């Protein structure tokens, strides 16, 4: 790491942080592994593992999880990266607004998003019926089922990672480098290959890893669309619901192992040289599009945004449909505000909104601090320490939410302070803790990617000029990584706000969050009310995304 940042003189802080992360992230998983190894009679055995290994369908589910996640990465990158280039490098009418619109799929929480897809593209969905009617078909032209449906939902919701991360990285790169390369005679492709892409690499790897691990842990889409196409997460839930908790644990261990392997591989790819850029700040004004492209590109971008926003639109429509009135009609026959009236006239219905808001605020703020500290301390450490710190930060994403929740529930269901275990189950605090752990990879990866682009010379200059560590952090480091951190924070907040899979295991009466209320409304056939909560969640998420995710953009340009 020649030319890397200064090594810290205080390994104590790194040690303490590593210990904290190990306890928060690693320890519950270790307990889960021990539980999985426990035989029904009480001792230890590999019995459940061998049952697992002998079943073909378990291996099949694992394989499907793997290739589906890889396919999701490809699909999300193919969508997201070109868009990031377009929006970072070219100016055209409506660019700012479109940028905001394109990030909106993140504001659709998984459960609600999948529901919206169902009412759009499902067998009796709006688009399906429109297309079927247009083609004069009596049967639905397609069925929203199996891996294509899951892949569609994944690409839709996860391309945003590539778009946001790549765009933030592009905005943070110094245009003078490209200009220099161009003046030295480098062609377009050569600049792309040798200047731009190396600078983008941390962001692309970050987004790729997030997409891969999110797909591995994805539950709502395979659950609702998978049918007999079982992936590992649905397999785990089936085992758990069927009362075979031990098999569920073994399945989670297997899934976690694959995800962990992916983590190691990506670290090997990304762990080499990180090119530092940006000496000083050069303002970059995106040139406007010219000629034919001036009209075609915005038109296509708007068309794409329209398709992206259809699920949001259908959600709003659903929230206006009174219970049991929309059956075989193409468009809903009745639209009124009765669901909203129900929502606003019953104070109890507001409680989940308040719970979700405070828990998500607390969890994402804590995740930001922890993620940044780990990334910042990690880059000053040698390989192994760094790997451990950064690994712990990213690891929770590899663990399916359900399993992490179970692991936390198991670990914190006994009061043994000497063993690092406290009685948290059944209290209000275990759920925000779970949110914190689930969103740590979002803030952590954002911080790692942001810091990787930092020019160490600036910090060295600050130190040479006599700035203390805190002053240098506050005045030099933080302002430059702020766009990345803000994007990470926004994603973390939104993820917590709409979380379903961990909540379902750990919520209590006092802190039941929005997604649980939605789930409950669905159970009670109140699809309209579920949509009202979905709309609310969408609006809250959108506001946060715009103010935090975008507001600091100016700092990067």
């Amino acid at each position, binding site marked *: 790491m020649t030319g890397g940042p200064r090594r810290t003189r205080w390994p104590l802080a790194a040690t303490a942080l590593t210990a904290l992360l190990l306890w928060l992230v690693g320890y519950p998983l270790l307990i889960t592994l021990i539980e999985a190894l426990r035989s029904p009679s009480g001792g230890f055995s590999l019995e459940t593992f061998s049952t697992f290994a002998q079943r073909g369908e378990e291996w099949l589910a694992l394989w499907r999880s793997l290739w589906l996640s890889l396919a999701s990465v490809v699909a999300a990158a193919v969508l997201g990266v070109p868009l990031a280039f377009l929006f970072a490098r070219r100016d055209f009418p409506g660019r700012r607004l479109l940028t905001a619109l394109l990030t909106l799929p993140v504001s659709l929480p998984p459960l609600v998003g999948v529901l919206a897809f169902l009412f759009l593209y499902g067998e009796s969905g709006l688009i399906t019926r429109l297309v079927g009617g247009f083609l004069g078909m009596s049967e639905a032209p397609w069925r929203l089922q199996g891996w294509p449906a899951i892949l569609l939902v994944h690409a839709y919701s996860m391309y945003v990672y590539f778009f946001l991360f790549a765009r933030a990285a592009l905005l943070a790169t110094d245009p003078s480098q490209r200009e220099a390369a161009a003046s030295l005679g480098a062609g377009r492709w050569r600049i792309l290959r040798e200047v731009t892409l190396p600078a983008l690499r941390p962001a692309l790897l970050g987004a790729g890893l997030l997409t891969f691990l999110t797909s591995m842990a994805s539950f709502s889409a395979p659950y609702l669309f998978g049918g007999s196409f079982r992936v590992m997460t649905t397999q785990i839930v*089936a085992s758990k*619901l*069927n009362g075979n908790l031990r098999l569920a644990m073994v399945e989670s261990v297997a899934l976690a192992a694959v995800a962990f392997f992916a983590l190691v591989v990506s670290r090997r790819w990304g762990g080499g040289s990180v090119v530092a850029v940006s000496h000083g700040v050069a303002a970059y004004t995106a040139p406007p599009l010219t000629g034919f492209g001036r009209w075609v590109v915005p038109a296509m971008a708007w068309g794409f945004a329209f398709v992206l926003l259809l699920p949001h639109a259908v959600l709003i429509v659903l929230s206006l449909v009174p219970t049991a009135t929309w059956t075989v009609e193409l468009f809903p026959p009745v639209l009124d505000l009765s669901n909203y009236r129900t929502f606003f006239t019953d104070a109890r219905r507001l409680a989940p909104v308040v*719970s979700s808001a405070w828990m998500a605020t607390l969890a994402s703020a804590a995740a930001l601090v922890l993620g940044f500290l780990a990334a910042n301390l990690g880059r000053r450490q040698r390989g192994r320490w760094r790997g451990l710190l950064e690994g712990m930060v990213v690891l929770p994403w590899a663990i399916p939410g359900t399993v992490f929740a179970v692991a936390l529930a198991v670990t914190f269901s006994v009061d043994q302070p000497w063993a690092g275990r406290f009685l948290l189950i*059944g*209290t209000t605090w275990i759920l925000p803790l779970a949110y914190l752990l689930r969103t740590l990879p979002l803030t952590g990866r954002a911080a790692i990617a942001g810091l990787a682009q930092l020019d160490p010379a600036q910090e060295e200059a600050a130190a040479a000029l006599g700035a203390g560590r805190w002053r240098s952090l506050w005045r030099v480091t933080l302002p430059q990584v702020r766009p990345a951190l803000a994007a990470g924070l926004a994603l973390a907040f939104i993820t917590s706000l709409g979380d379903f899979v961990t909540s379902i295991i750990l919520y209590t*009466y006092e802190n039941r969050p929005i997604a649980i209320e939605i789930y409950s409304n*669905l159970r*009670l*056939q109140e699809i309209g009310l579920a949509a009202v909560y979905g709309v609310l969640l969408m609006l809250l998420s959108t506001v946060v995304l715009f103010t935090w995710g975008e507001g600091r953009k100016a700092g990067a340009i």
Partner: protein
Amino acid sequence: MKLAGSLVLSLVLLATSGCGGGGDGVTSITLYSPHGRDLLQLYEETYEAAHPEHDVRWLDMGSQEVYDRVRSEAANPQADVWFGGPDTMFSRGVEEGLLQPFRPTWADSVPESSQHPQDLYFGLYLALPILVYNSDAVTEEEAPRDWEDLLDPRWKNKIVLRDPIASGTMRTAFGMILSRSIAETGDVTAGFEWLRRLDGQTKEYAQNPALLFSKLTRQEALVSIWELTDILLLQRQGSPLAYRFATSGTPIIDDSIGLVTNAPHADAARQFIEWVGSVEAQELAAEKLFRIPARTDLPREELPTWAVDVIDQLQPAAVDWDRLTKDGTAWMERWDREVRSKG
């Protein structure tokens, strides 16, 4: 950033100021229940009017999830009353020590078969799996009359079922088929063969009841198996659904109630359980929300006519409940592995 800051601040203020739980001297009773908002809210309001010293709080969730939650919270129980779900689920809870004994006075009015021998739970309502169809698309004449009719080629790909892994109702219906197979042939082979044929007819397994009803009312499928109370409630809301009791018999599920081990407010919970089984509460649920009381001592003239009709029409199917409790998990695992999407 400022906007976000003020938003967060106002939300935190809201969180700390609002929703401040029950006041002084009020004991809360927490119910975990699959019964749904209608019944729970009705009971909450009616009970609290008569018992101002109690605050009834409830969480609605699937019956399998109630079991799962009570089990995972066993170290620090949050629920006082486990209110609802098939008795087979309760007996699994008993095996894990999740229930404590309490015998309400109304227990004597419930058939012996609907009681746990050590007073750990009692049947409160009857839940009845029935044949459901979309009445816009299927006439009463055409509708299936018995379980056997579901295998008719005309229903190929017209059947949608609730995913049996997560559903107590479906587990019981499948358990009945397998019980029958044991009674007639000595083992479950024929039963699984029957279920495989049913799987071949089935277009889709819905992941929750709402999706099941949505697919039925939107005519993605026309026929299903589900529980009577839900269908009656949907009919009242105007859904185009109709039902029929299977001619060869209906498996009768004892929808039960029990007191959670180490319940934080056990005394208040006992009073609530006592009230829920009272004549008043049972008639209220029957009249307003289509629950069929498990008590056998309610005078017919005080029950709504639909309930009297149901009780008269009802043909209990023979189910080996002990066997179902014991082998149900293994059966469903086998179904999941060998039958799902293989028929």
